């Protein structure tokens, strides 16, 4: 169906793909796995004409092809959802779905039909919003669903999905799987990239493993032990990995009694209404809820990036002024969920991105000290195992997961007292994820107050000492101690628990 033979791709000295061969057969669901920066996204971009391979050939239906542009791959029946959401935020939801193939009558776009079609199509993906609204009015997850709906509705014979679930809710994930099953039964080939093992084993038949741009394994997935798969991805011995569980969190933490962070009665427009959260030093508090339930908004409200109608944020009993800079000075940091828009400064180097928030602390009389910077950057690049050719590499050139680590490093070097983590392990590989989780654990042990937002139930249950559940922008329940179980959380989310 679609085949890559010995393709290579190099970026300024980094071999992102090193003579990788890959075959996607009709009607199969094929998993592509590997650590952050292994070359998965690059392989996909080579397959779909975004990048031209430096060496090797592509074959489509057995015949060699070159896709000079994404449109050519699309016309050949290959449709793709790229890792970062790639839609047009200012255009309407409906326009995004049908962009480039709008229904027309007498040469002019028929908006009535287009909107109706989009509404109907998106309903199948659980999106009920007014399709005439701009796409940006949807959350990241919902946008991902729109991208999916668009890709699938292109009548493709091959659908490629690069980490489609990384911003999806469990419920949305189910919707996605239904769609995948439908496509599968229609004989459509699917290439599926994800870091979530459970998903892979549920839906994929074949697996291809990349490591450092090289092919390490390709074959059926079903009988491949999970532990072996992980060891191939990481390039470490199986025994090495067995010691850890599925998540890397330790036991509950010993939190002191007095809350360090008290967010009280936060209300902002229609997004959050009377939300109160407290976090004690040394405690990890989880924030659970469905997509759009207001978790990100709560975090943004605490750091001062969301204007409040009412409510106060107290740190150690003292009110925190409502600007990000003041909140940070007081000791609160936020790892934002949208890495591309709210996180990295793409043009700057890894070093500059890491020290950005800590600059005032690293400089005297406004002059930055290079040696202090180097020390910190070095420490964190080692501690978080950031994979970059040097601290002077542009952060835009790192893989998604490594960018995430750079951001984590940025916040850690501000030496915060309270860390707000919005989807910290989104899009990072099992190895890195374990490291991040262990790090959260460690930070809490050191006495940091952590607010953890995650769409992965497992991460929340294992990681958090206490979970606050949000529903439609209000607190729907709070669970602590023994009550922190998946069943209880789901019940609170669904509203079936008093």
């Amino acid at each position, binding site marked *: 169906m679609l085949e890559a033979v010995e393709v290579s791709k190099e970026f300024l000295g980094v071999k992102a793909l090193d003579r990788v061969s890959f075959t996607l057969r009709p009607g199969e669901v094929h998993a592509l796995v590997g650590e952050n920066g292994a070359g998965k996204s690059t392989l996909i971009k080579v397959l779909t004409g*975004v990048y031209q391979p430096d060496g090797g050939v592509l074959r489509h239906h057995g015949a060699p092809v070159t896709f000079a542009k*994404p449109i050519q791959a699309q016309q050949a029946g290959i449709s793709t959802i790229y890792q970062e959401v*790639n839609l*047009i935020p200012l255009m309407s939801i409906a326009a995004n779905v049908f*962009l*480039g193939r709008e229904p027309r009558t007498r040469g002019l776009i028929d908006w009535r039909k287009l909107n109706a079609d989009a509404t109907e199509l998106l309903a199948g993906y659980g999106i009920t919003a007014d399709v005439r609204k701009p796409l940006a009015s949807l959350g990241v997850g919902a946008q991902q669903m729109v991208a999916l709906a*668009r890709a699938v509705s292109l009548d493709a014979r091959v659908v490629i999905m690069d980490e489609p679930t990384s911003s999806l809710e469990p419920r949305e994930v189910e919707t996605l799987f239904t769609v995948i099953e439908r496509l599968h039964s229609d004989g459509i080939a699917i290439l599926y990239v994800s870091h979530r093992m459970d998903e892979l084993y549920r839906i994929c038949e074949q697996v291809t493993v990349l490591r450092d741009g090289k092919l390490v394994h390709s074959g059926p997935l079903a009988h491949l032990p999970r532990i072996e798969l992980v060891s191939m991805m990481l390039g470490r011995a199986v025994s090495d990995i067995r010691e850890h569980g599925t998540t890397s969190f330790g036991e509950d933490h010993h939190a002191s009694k007095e809350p360090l962070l008290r967010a009280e009665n936060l209300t902002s427009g229609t997004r959050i209404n009377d939300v109160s959260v407290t976090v004690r030093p040394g405690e990890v508090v989880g924030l659970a809820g469905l997509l759009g339930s207001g978790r990100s908004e709560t975090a943004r409200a605490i750091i001062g990036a969301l204007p409040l109608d009412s409510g106060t944020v107290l740190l150690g009993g003292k009110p925190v002024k409502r600007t990000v800079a003041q909140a940070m000075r007081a000791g609160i940091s936020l790892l934002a969920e949208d890495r591309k828009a709210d996180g990295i400064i793409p043009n700057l180097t890894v070093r500059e991105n890491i020290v950005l928030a800590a600059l005032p602390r690293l400089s005297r009389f406004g002059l930055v000290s290079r040696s202090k910077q180097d020390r910190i950057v070095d420490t964190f690049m080692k501690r978080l195992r950031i994979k970059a050719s040097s601290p002077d590499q542009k952060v835009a050139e790192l893989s998604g997961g490594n960018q995430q680590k750079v951001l984590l490093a940025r916040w850690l070097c501000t030496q915060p007292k309270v860390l707000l983590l919005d989807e910290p392990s989104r899009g990072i590989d099992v190895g890195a994820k374990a490291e991040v989780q262990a790090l959260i654990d460690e930070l809490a042990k050191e006495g940091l107050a952590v607010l953890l937002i995650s769409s992965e139930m497992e991460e929340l249950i294992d990681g958090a000492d206490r979970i606050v559940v949000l529903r439609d922008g209000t607190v729907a329940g709070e669970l602590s101690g023994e009550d922190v179980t998946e069943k209880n959380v789901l019940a609170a989310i669904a509203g079936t628990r008093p």
Partner: protein
Amino acid sequence: MTATTVQANRERWASLLQRQGAAVVLVVVIVVAWLAFPRFGSLGNLRDLALQSSFLLVIALGMTFVIITGGIDLSVGSVYALGGVLAAYGSQWGFFGSLLLPLAVCGLIGLINGILVARTGMAPFIVTLASLLFARGLLLAITSEGSTTFKIPGDAFFLQLGQGTFLGIGYPVYIAAALCLAGGVLLRRTRFGQSVFATGGSESSALLMGLPVARTKIAVYTMSGLLAGFAGALTASYLQSGVTVIGVGTELDAIAVVVIGGTLLTGGAGTILGTVIGVGLRNVIQSVINQIGTLDSNFQSVVSGGFLLVVVVVQRWLAQSRNA
């Protein structure tokens, strides 16, 4: 009518008001001008106002497309002047000479702008700044350093284009209106229009979605060149000669009116109607300044600059109150 539909109607109005901040300002200014200066509302004045506006409107129409793709076209002022000179020069070959020569040359300049922007990734600002110089230089070369002014023969049919009237209103008004209508349809109702929005909204996404980004950019710059050249031809017809001194700073006027009309300079959003309102606003203000009469000529530009800022600030404020 139920309470909810009343509510919905009110909301719709409020949002319209907020979206078209410039329209609100325009209405206010017109009402005030009408009350303060009785002559303002005279048929003659309004007619002249419409006629004067039509040339800038044609230029601003092209600029609107360019700005929606996230670009900018600084060359339009020079290209406008060049178009006028070429139309007058071309009048020796009759109507089609007058029309086709400026369209061909100005369209070509636009095409080159587009190709440079789309294919080489150079910033539109700098590409079109260079062609601003180039077009002005070409104009000077054609007119032997500006010393010759080409005339259009008094009996040329081409003169009808700029000087003819229908129901007392000059043809340029109808032509500009027709072009805007066509532009509106092109922008809202065609795939090309959608890719204009998409290109400005997020170029990389548009590329990955398989839209013809480069072709779209080339097309809008070509359009902008064509329209500026056409506006020049129209002006030449109106003035009966290829005047060399027009168009200096017109690019800034065009950008200002497009932005006043609510089109985002960052691209991805904008309307033709807004541009029409922006042009109206600019010329109404100028007319009001004239009616005041006693204003020192140097002070007039202070007033125009101040006014531009007021409109933009008000608009910004309305937009913010909508988002909040």
